[in-house]
């Protein structure tokens, strides 16, 4: 996946100054401990994960490597709904995340003036507090008889959600709606910050120039602001989509049995059912799917500087 590497390294590769070319061992010495750690505890586990998926047996009698690939079609045929659902939920959360994050990021970067720093603090601070507790707070916010559920009922929005099969039984909690709202919420800072970084670099004179050259507000956005913010959009969508796909905290705490995501399946196969090969196979499938999607996306978006 050269494009994935380029996505990360683009900035560095071009910015690397021509320095001290003689003392070549220095960068390797700097890299060694960190890369060794990643090799041992990121790369090696991928090998053992692959190996585990091709073993047969059980935790009590031990596993034997048989190289039986049939576990993959089995896992796929059994759990494809959860896999697809995870991708769907993650894509939805990414889409709405972008929709919500963009105006806030743009406002902070270009319009907030002296409020900029305060707003930035308010965006970052929740990100540093417990993910789980904030998700639990959504149970309170969306609970029956609460302000939000009241509002949905009065405006009839609840009927729309029911019609879209996003909720059932007239309650907001334990539904697709709650899971996707939670996912959108939880990964929003990951969307806002890269967008903010990209939009903050935007020289306001570009917008003035566009207006001067007869562009409407929308055309200015479409032809100037949006293209220039693309690196932020790509980084933000990736940082939202990837963790959201594997997440199961939201689906577990805010959903129901019909909203089970793939992470939940892998978790329970590993830790409850103890079917390691099947679990490892699913895990591997998830990884391949994500990496493929990310590689395609990065290539398509054609941005060099991601991180």
């Amino acid at each position, binding site marked *: 996946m050269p494009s994935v590497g380029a996505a990360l390294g683009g900035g560095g590769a071009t910015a690397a100054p021509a320095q001290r070319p003689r003392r070549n061992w220095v960068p390797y010495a700097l890299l060694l401990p960190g890369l060794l750690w990643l090799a041992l505890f*990121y790369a090696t586990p991928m090998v053992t994960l692959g190996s585990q998926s091709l073993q047969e047996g059980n935790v009590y009698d031990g596993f034997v490597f048989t190289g039986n690939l049939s576990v993959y079609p089995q896992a796929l045929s059994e759990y494809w709904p959860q896999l697809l659902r995870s991708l769907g939920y993650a894509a939805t959360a990414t889409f709405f995340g972008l929709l919500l994050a963009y105006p*806030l990021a743009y406002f902070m970067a270009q319009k907030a003036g002296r409020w900029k720093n305060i707003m930035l603090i308010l965006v970052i601070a*929740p990100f540093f*507090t417990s993910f789980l507790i904030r998700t*639990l707070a959504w149970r309170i*916010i969306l609970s029956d008889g609460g302000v939000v559920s009241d509002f949905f009922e009065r405006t009839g929005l609840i009927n729309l959600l029911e019609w879209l099969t996003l909720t059932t039984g007239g309650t907001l909690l334990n539904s697709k709606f709650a899971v996707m709202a939670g996912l959108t919420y939880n990964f929003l800072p990951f969307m806002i910050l890269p967008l903010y970084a990209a939009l903050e670099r935007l020289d306001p004179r570009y917008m003035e120039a566009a207006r001067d050259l007869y562009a409407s507000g929308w055309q200015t956005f479409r032809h100037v602001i949006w293209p220039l913010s693309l690196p932020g959009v790509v980084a933000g969508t990736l940082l939202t989509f990837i963790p959201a796909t*594997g997440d199961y905290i939201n689906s577990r705490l805010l959903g129901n049995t019909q909203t089970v995501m793939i992470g939940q399946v*892998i978790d329970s196969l590993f830790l409850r059912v103890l079917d390691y090969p099947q679990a490892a196979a699913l*895990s591997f499938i998830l990884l391949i799917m994500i990496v493929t999607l990310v590689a395609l996306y990065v290539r398509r978006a054609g941005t060099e500087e991601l991180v």
Partner: protein
Amino acid sequence: MTWIKRHLLAFAALAVLAYLLIPNLVVAIFSFNDPRGRYNYEWNEFSAAAWLNPCGSPGLCEALGLSLRIGFIAAFVATVLGTLVAFALGRHRFRGRSGTNLLIFMPMATPEVVMGSSLLTLFVMAGIPSGAVNITIAHIMFCLSFVVVAVKARVSSLDPRLEEAAADLGANPFQTFLRVTLPLAAPGIAAGALLAFSLSFDDYIITNFNASPSSITFPMYVWGAAQRGTPVEIFVVGTVMFLIALTVVVIGQMLSSRRDRKA
């Protein structure tokens, strides 16, 4: 009407900000609740009991202590290793740069459930029992990439002429690093360390795959509690964390804006 139209963007921005902050507000309010049952989901009546005795919920403070310890160690090690890598990437030319970038990027492109489960298979095959050490190792691994990104951004934006100026003025490479490069990179390193700590402290999924019953971290405690009932004390901890984070971020902002103005 035109007033509303003109400020539409501001309203949208504030609404999103509210969406981000309301859960924290709810957590703060419900930390003063005296719930009727085991679940702290409905407002009953005001009580400061949980604030007066935050360790009242059995096991909570032990879990918190473990999370803090793991968080500090993981943040420290990841910051040191990540900073070294960031310096190599931002300041040197070498063969294997794209491979290095790929290895740094992959943990960020891998869902936590995959990293957690793959590490479990590694430790199982190596015959290493689960526990706090495994958790710490895992946390260092996934925090490292984020530190690299944070520090590299800062390092590659530094003017290389500043280092040349130091050498020109008689500073040897070590003095140049200590007196010029490191102080200038410090904000990036601090941001990386802070990020690493919060990622470690907050991680549930990877931790859960590698924990044993004797190594319950705070997020695991919250998760376990959510299955049986939610003690008000975890809302107290959540509020305190928010306040600490707010303070740290405010101080960081003040430092950096003072630097922008003065330095």
